[in-house]
């Protein structure tokens, strides 16, 4: 099965490599590898080295500059304060709803299709819609006023809540569809077996389904968190980009494209990547404590 053509003898070391699975077919990987190295790994390490070559001061001065300025340092906390609750809410709300909908029922395809819509709309359009819908004269506030729930319009845009809602609208369907696909990957006969042994639904859920679902939930949380953590357009458009929603990606963008300080922008991007990887590492470390084997396949 080696890729060498007939009539061309293999040299000794080619034989040795072929025994270990390295032969000419692996050339198929080369374009993709060259691509990833040139456009992902090289820029990444270029940015990393650039961040240690600031325009002023020693190698760490850009990092020191970021952490000594409370306006800049605070962006980490601001980002986490938006991204973590949004990701948690999305995943936690998705679990009972997906649990309820995991079976077959009429209109399931319709529900899942409708849920895909906000994902494809993207954050920019969601932001525009939220500005219209949740704004002081928007329908949402009109309904609240008309039903006398509030005295005056609730301020839901150009602050923390605008960004939060935009993350829920784009993030919840994402989390839901992932959780649903993980749930339908769990063998339903396991739960039926527990039912015949006398477990009620609460016990079946906490002792059977939830432990099997935990690894999937951890993955879902990570992916939702990545989406929420890099929130950029909605933080500018429906948030308050100068104050309470000045997220870290905005700080990096401003450094690069408004002050043209690429070393500093790279330093912020590196800090951003680092903070995110720390959170993901914590979640994945917790995930490895759960059962991660086969979940019995599809029903």
């Amino acid at each position: 099965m080696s890729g060498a053509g007939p009539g061309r003898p293999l040299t000794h070391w080619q034989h040795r490599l072929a025994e270990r699975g390295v032969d000419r077919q692996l050339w198929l990987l080369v374009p993709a590898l060259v691509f990833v190295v040139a456009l992902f790994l090289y820029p990444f390490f270029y940015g990393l080295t650039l961040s240690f070559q600031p325009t002023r001061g020693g190698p760490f001065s850009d990092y020191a500059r970021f952490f000594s300025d409370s306006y800049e340092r605070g962006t980490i906390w601001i980002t986490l304060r938006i991204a973590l609750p949004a990701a948690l809410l999305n995943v936690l709300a998705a679990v009972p709803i997906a649990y309820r909908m995991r079976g077959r029922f009429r209109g399931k395809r319709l529900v899942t299709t409708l849920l895909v819509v906000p994902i494809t709309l993207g954050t920019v359009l969601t932001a525009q819609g939220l500005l219209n819908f949740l704004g002081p004269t928007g329908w949402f506030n009109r309904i609240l006023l008309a039903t006398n729930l509030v005295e005056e319009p609730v301020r839901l845009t150009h602050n923390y809540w605008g960004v939060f809602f935009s993350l829920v609208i784009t993030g919840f369907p994402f989390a839901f569809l992932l959780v649903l696909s993980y749930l339908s990957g769990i063998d339903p006969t396991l739960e039926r077996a527990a039912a015949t042994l006398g477990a009620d639904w609460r016990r079946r859920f906490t002792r059977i389904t939830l432990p099997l679902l935990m690894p999937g939930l951890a993955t879902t949380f990570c992916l939702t968190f990545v989406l929420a953590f890099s929130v950029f357009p909605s933080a500018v458009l429906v948030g308050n980009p100068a104050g309470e929603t000045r997220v870290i990606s905005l700080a990096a963008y401003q450094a690069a494209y408004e002050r043209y300080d690429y070393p500093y922008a790279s330093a912020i991007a590196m800090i951003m990547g680092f903070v995110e990887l720390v959170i993901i590492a914590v979640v994945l470390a917790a995930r490895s404590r759960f059962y991660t084997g086969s979940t019995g396949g599809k029903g």
Partner: protein
Amino acid sequence: MATTTRARPARPPATSTDRRRRIAARPAAWLVWGVVIFFFLNLLGVVASVLVSSFGQRWFDTWLPDGYTTSWYARAWDEFALLQVIVVTLEVSVLVVGLSLLIGVPAAYALARRSFPGKRLIFLVFLLPILMPPITYGIPLATVLYKFGLAGHMSGVVLANLVPSVPFVILTMTPFIEQIDPRIESAARMCGAGLRTVFLRVLTPLLVPGILASAILVLVRTVGMFELTFLTAGPDSQTLVVALYYSMSASGIRAQQSVDAMAVIYTSMMLVLLVVALRYVNPTQLVAQVKDEPEH
């Protein structure tokens, strides 16, 4: 614990009709459906308010606009040079889809069929661009592209958008290739087909559904990709979503409604893509690389 369990007799295994009956009975089910419906109502409000506003003549402090007109579309079309923007969007998407398939499918084949030293490491390298937020690697990437003079026009936009697309093609194609029986290839080999013939005459026809699915997924993601395009695009290489962002962030200058009209054009473009996509792929595939078998 045991007594509470005993108190409730075990239900028989729930069939689908049985479950439907229970949905009507439980308050928890009502709560769940209530949350879902509330979510959809708000979603509808978000989309509909843009749509209504784009057709409204004047809409200030009222439930609905004073009158209706389509003139905002004509204005948006002229003001934002939408024809050029849409052409650029299509060019970028087609190039990204084509190139990512050309680069990704052979790599997915090698990863699906072969085992070799360092395979896990290579897989991890391919996974990283999907796990990292676009802004994190987008800023260093844009810096590098500007350094080589590639950013600011279309080649930079295409290159930047390829970064998450190629790994995405690899991840979606690998399970497709794994499920093709390797004995088919062996048979073709035995009949004298070389690697290229196996690829073009045997594998590609079998892979058409998979290639189509991942092409459409990449297309949807590229049209909707904001961050990378935003960081690398020049004035004449903006895609629709970036142009929309710029018109929104400078919304004081232009009428709100013409921005809304542009947003509707973007939405309808995405919806057309979505309807096409859903004919070929499962909704879960739009968000994940999990291959979901049709449930029986």
